[in-house]
């Protein structure tokens, strides 16, 4: 079946089907959120439209990525203890590489922090993103490993 959304979907048919469900569920939740927000807007006047719009984007993205992470369909080939431990190391090195490369690009192309507070800000942001990335990847890996082990 051809659709413009195909480029966002994986080649594996099971994963493709699950992803379509996640996108559809996300779209319905987004629709309901908009309805609730319209009702809320009639009761309390909402001034900051930009934040509300960003909230909708966040709801959709969090729902779809959350469902993807806990479904255990990301690491389809991790079924042994050895490959599981190896993948944890890969996730750790990928996260560290991202933090280091982002920091270097930031310093080269954007700005070199001028005081201690600015250094704290950029380091804190990068560390938070790195930790969240590692934890979400770890949860996804753990769920995939558990699911794959049961299917052997």
């Amino acid at each position, binding site marked *: 079946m051809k659709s413009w959304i195909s480029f966002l979907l994986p*080649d*594996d*048919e*099971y*994963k493709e089907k699950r992803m379509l469900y996640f996108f559809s569920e996300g779209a319905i939740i987004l629709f309901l959120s908009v309805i609730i927000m319209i009702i809320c807007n009639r009761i309390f006047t909402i001034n900051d439209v930009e934040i509300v719009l960003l909230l909708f984007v966040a709801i959709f993205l969090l729902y779809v990525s959350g469902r993807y992470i806990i479904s255990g*369909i990301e690491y*389809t*080939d991790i*079924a042994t203890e050895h490959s599981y431990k190896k993948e944890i190391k890969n996730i750790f090195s990928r996260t560290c590489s991202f933090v280091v490369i982002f920091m270097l690009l930031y310093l080269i192309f954007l700005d070199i922090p001028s005081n201690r507070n600015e250094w704290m800000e950029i380091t804190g942001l990068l560390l938070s993103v790195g930790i969240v990335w590692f934890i979400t990847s770890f949860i996804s890996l753990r769920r*995939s490993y558990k*699911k*794959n082990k049961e*299917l*052997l």
Partner: protein
Amino acid sequence: MKNNVKIMRLKMSMTQEQLAKRVGVTRQTIGLIEKGEYNPSLQLCVAIAKELNKTLDDLFWEENLI
């Protein structure tokens, strides 16, 4: 849906990974099909049947289940 995929695969001494690679899906998908937790498309059923040298009846027809 119950099926004979696992039995026929083991008879051919094939791993889940090998079958998955040959039919163009992931090992997880083959595992789910074997456990009856995912109903594959007709296209994938035919691909699996061809790889295992069996007919669709041998693999998926209720009366032929082992």
